[in-house]
């Protein structure tokens, strides 16, 4: 009973981060990619990213997250006009092996969702920082963003997680 829940554990993986441990390969890819990353993108410990322009934040999942999840086959995104608080569960992504909840990195009101991603969820895998964005929030407290991890901090966070495994 205990052990055979392993496939279930897959579904928890993005929130627990320790489920996937393939790792040296990931890390290399990260360093490689990092040259293209925008300096102002912030990350959560649940592997969402947010980019803020004025009062509007655009949210997606990180490269690490999309790789851990594998081919996304279904995206359930929050509808516009929904109010969210920071860390609220507001959607989910499904791959063959797992379901992963999406948590809002910030508080505010949803003002848009990426309909193209709903129609073509694989955009999350092929372009997680651009075409694969998930939704936009009008922030109610911009200070929340500054408490999220910078790119460097997030990389360090991933590295520490890997080492603990």
């Amino acid at each position: 009973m205990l052990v055979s829940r392993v496939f279930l554990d897959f579904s928890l993986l993005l929130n627990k981060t320790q489920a996937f441990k393939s790792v040296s390969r990931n890390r290399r890819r990260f360093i490689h990619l990092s040259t293209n990353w925008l300096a102002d993108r912030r990350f959560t410990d649940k592997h969402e990213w947010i980019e803020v322009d004025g009062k509007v934040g655009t949210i997606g999942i990180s490269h690490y997250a999309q790789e851990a999840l594998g081919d996304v086959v279904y995206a359930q995104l929050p509808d516009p006009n929904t109010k969210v608080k920071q860390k609220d569960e507001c959607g989910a992504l499904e791959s063959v092996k797992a379901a992963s909840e999406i948590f809002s990195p910030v508080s505010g009101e949803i003002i848009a969702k990426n309909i193209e991603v709903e129609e073509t969820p694989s955009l999350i895998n092929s372009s997680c920082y651009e075409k694969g964005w998930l939704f936009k929030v009008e922030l109610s407290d911009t200070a929340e963003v500054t408490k999220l991890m910078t790119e460097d901090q997030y990389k360090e966070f991933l590295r520490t997680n890997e080492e603990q495994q």
Partner: protein
Amino acid sequence: MLGKRLISSKFINRFFSSKPSLGEKTGLYDFHVKNGGKIVNFGGFALPVQYSDQSIAASHVHTRTNASIFDVSHMLQTEIKGNKCTEYLESICTADLKALPSNSSTLTVFTNENGGILDDLIVTKITEEEFYVVSNAAMKQQDQQIMTEALKDFKTRNTNTDIELKFYQPKERGLIALQGPKAITALQRLTDANLSELYFMTSTIGKIGNVERCRITRCGYTGEDGFEISMPTQRQVELTELLLEQEDVKMAGLGARDSLRLEAGLCLYGSDIDQTTTPVEAALTWLVAKSRRQAADFPGANVILEHIKTGCGRKRVGITSHSGPPARHGSKILDENQKELGEVTSGCPGPSLGKNVAMGYVSTENSKVGTKVLLKIRDKLYEGVVTKMPFVPSRYYVKAKSNK
């Protein structure tokens, strides 16, 4: 204190060449890593969930159209030898092993006194005095205990038996599954065994490449034709490399294994069946052999026979849904009036079907194929329908039936 801890952790790291939480390694561990396997801890074993050359969905489809190799060395392989071992093994399972021909295999279950399933396993009868059993890795400890205690018990009743059990560790014997429609061509090129005469659920010993005495059983966990091959662990890399060199053969991981078995309607122990489900509830009544029903001599026979006779409250069914997210373990199944019928025990998007597949338990009166249900996923309701399993047609290599 700090210094001491650093030294000891370094020592530990050097002692166990990988991170300890990764799990026990199989004979193919280094091979997996070298070939791009994404290693996860699966029930205490370090095994690849997928390979970097393919997504899980692509690997799944590759298995259904070509052939894939799975490392299943984590499973418990047991050898049972001695006189009366048919009788002994029957004392803990529901199969008719007396009627099982030599070199044939059968799926069966260990049951408890309440009729619950303790594990599902493949038993191969080599001769009347020799059996080969493959059971679940997750239930390794329990299964060894069941077999050991049952043997003690059997020996007190049968003083003249010389049955011996041998539990193989992954470092002694490896096990790989070669699955898919092209498995036959790949393997036949390499072995002296005549595979055209090796039908589904039969077993033989053969030489593969230069590896003598491999046990080749035509079975699997994908719904496709294929083989499970048991060999000494020190030859496992050599044999796997040889198979992988064959045209159209790729490595596959646990991710594809799970979606393949689900589409094939095959149970995962611990998710779809466990000690609280009887074979009748699990829609596995066919595993309770007729002769065994008459003899009623297996653990939990009274409960199971009662279920067979008068029915039971719930039943395992297949459910498909065309739109919406896949229902996973724990999703509630409701009727059209939103009355709860039961729960999904496993589910995923079916990569070869283009729709979501799941299995779960519903009340028996709602278990008929075609029954419309609602699946509750993250507080939203999606339409599903009770569907016959397997979801994809099985393609086992069975002997053509003679004309009636």
